[in-house]
């Protein structure tokens, strides 16, 4: 009890420390702007950014753009997850197919999604569709390779056990392979979601007429730098929240690990 109390104080101390550093940086930034050392068109002061944020939030523009970006990420990510998991499981289960397809995948993987933007615009025009395509492309590879590795690394005795327990194909897939690979698949989904968010912003800067990426690009052209910075902060926040949400989803979907995590947490606290 006493120790837990101590840890809490310690934690809140580090929190105030972090906050302190943040406040100092903001103060210096504000000072530089006010004293005229930095041109505010290049780096507007924190107070300008705050005012810009309030203006954008109250007019609803910020919400509309955020929703546009989030929608693109989610749809592209769901597509990537589906194909990534299915392809990863299939290739891991069928060696012969893997022999043919792995070289192709390894060749496509190093092409950054940004390099696909011209093709995506040619094929899908401007708007949601090229963004879905690019996001799916960016998120596919981490999901695919982690699923593949997850299935490949399943203990042989688990498969043997399932066989000796008379598992049919469906049970082998849904009761053994998939759950055994799930921790690895979730890592892939986590990385994939991070990629997806980066890709969507980039894609919107070039090939869209809405979304946070489009918004910061437009404001750059109009030299409204304070709006650009508001956009950047919101992009960071949403990305952060999405990955947090993903973490919560992970502990929810693998309860047998959640117990382990809880146990180690207890031991650490003791």
């Amino acid at each position, binding site marked *: 009890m006493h120790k837990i109390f101590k840890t809490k104080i310690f934690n809140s101390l580090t929190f105030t420390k972090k906050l302190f550093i943040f406040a100092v940086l903001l103060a210096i930034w504000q000072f530089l702007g006010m004293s005229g050392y930095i041109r505010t068109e290049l780096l507007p002061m924190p107070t300008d950014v705050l005012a810009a944020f309030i203006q954008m939030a109250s007019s609803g523009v910020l919400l509309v753009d955020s929703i546009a970006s989030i929608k693109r990420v989610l749809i592209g990510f769901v597509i990537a997850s589906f194909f990534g998991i299915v392809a990863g499981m299939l290739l891991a289960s069928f060696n012969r197919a893997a022999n043919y397809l792995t070289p192709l995948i390894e060749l496509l993987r190093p092409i950054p999604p940004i390099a696909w933007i011209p093709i995506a615009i040619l094929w899908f025009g401007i708007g949601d569709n090229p963004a879905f395509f690019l996001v799916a492309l960016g998120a596919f590879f981490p999901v695919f390779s982690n699923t593949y590795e997850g299935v490949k690394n399943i*203990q042989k*005795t*688990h498969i*043997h*056990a*399932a*066989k*000796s*327990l*008379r*598992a*049919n194909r469906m*049970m082998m897939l849904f*009761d*053994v392979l998939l*759950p*055994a690979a*799930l921790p690895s698949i979730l890592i892939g989904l986590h990385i994939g979601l991070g990629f997806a968010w980066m890709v969507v912003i980039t894609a919107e800067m070039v090939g869209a007429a809405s979304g946070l990426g489009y918004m910061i690009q437009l404001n750059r052209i109009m030299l409204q730098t304070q709006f650009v910075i508001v956009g950047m902060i919101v992009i960071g926040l949403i990305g952060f929240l999405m990955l947090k949400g993903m973490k919560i989803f992970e502990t929810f979907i*693998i*309860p*047998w690990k959640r*117990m*382990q995590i809880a*146990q180690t947490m207890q031991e650490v606290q003791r």
Partner: protein
Amino acid sequence: MSAAIEVENLNKIYPSNGAYGVKALEDMSFNVNPREFISVVGPNGCGKTTLINILAGFLGYEEGDVLVNSKPLNQTPNECGVVFQNLALFDWKTVYENIEFPLKAIGLPKDERKKSVQNYVDMVKLNGFENSYPSELSGGMKQKTAIARALAANHKILLMDEPFAALDWQTRELMQGELEKLWARTRKTIFFITHSLDEAVFLSDKVFIMTARPGKIKEIVDIPLPRPRTGNIRYEQKFQRIKRKIWRSLREEVEKAHEVRKTA
């Protein structure tokens, strides 16, 4: 009644970089009668686990005839239940779901599965832990779960590959007693691999002693101790005498195995 397991002139060679490969089993022959409890002892690397993997249908072999329940092995791959050295419990399933797995596999309806799982939970005394995950169980309880799961598959033959090796000796002795009772109750044929002579003598009707690699059966020792056996039997002279006899025979092989390793 025909034999539960018949092995004749079984040869198993692992491919290796050399021209010949590693001979794991050579001209191995033996029979196991239904409802017998057989233990196999042998020096490290003599092919005990290879033998179990072949009998379970996980591993092919080069020569010989292997009949399980009078059926050739290649026609019926899953005639035996297996308890693995590392247990191979499904970490993502609770105790209940692990035991339910083989029942689900044969398509038993849900309410019957429930009854059956309960039966096995009672049998191995895991009551109260049905909803625990393997990571939350002690070594002995994990063992019990693995055994219950194998029993639920309802094979006539149970192959056990050093299942108690990871347990402390107190738990180990308890588990041996439990296993002897389970064996008597379920009337299974058990083929049990172990490093512990104590365990082998306590549990078995017969002990197979294997030679150093390439492995074959060197000697079969009958254990004419009365059943049911209790822990105290270990301290009786008869028990010790049999154990010594097995050790004398096994010791030669262990030394041979060491010689081979030195020269290699």
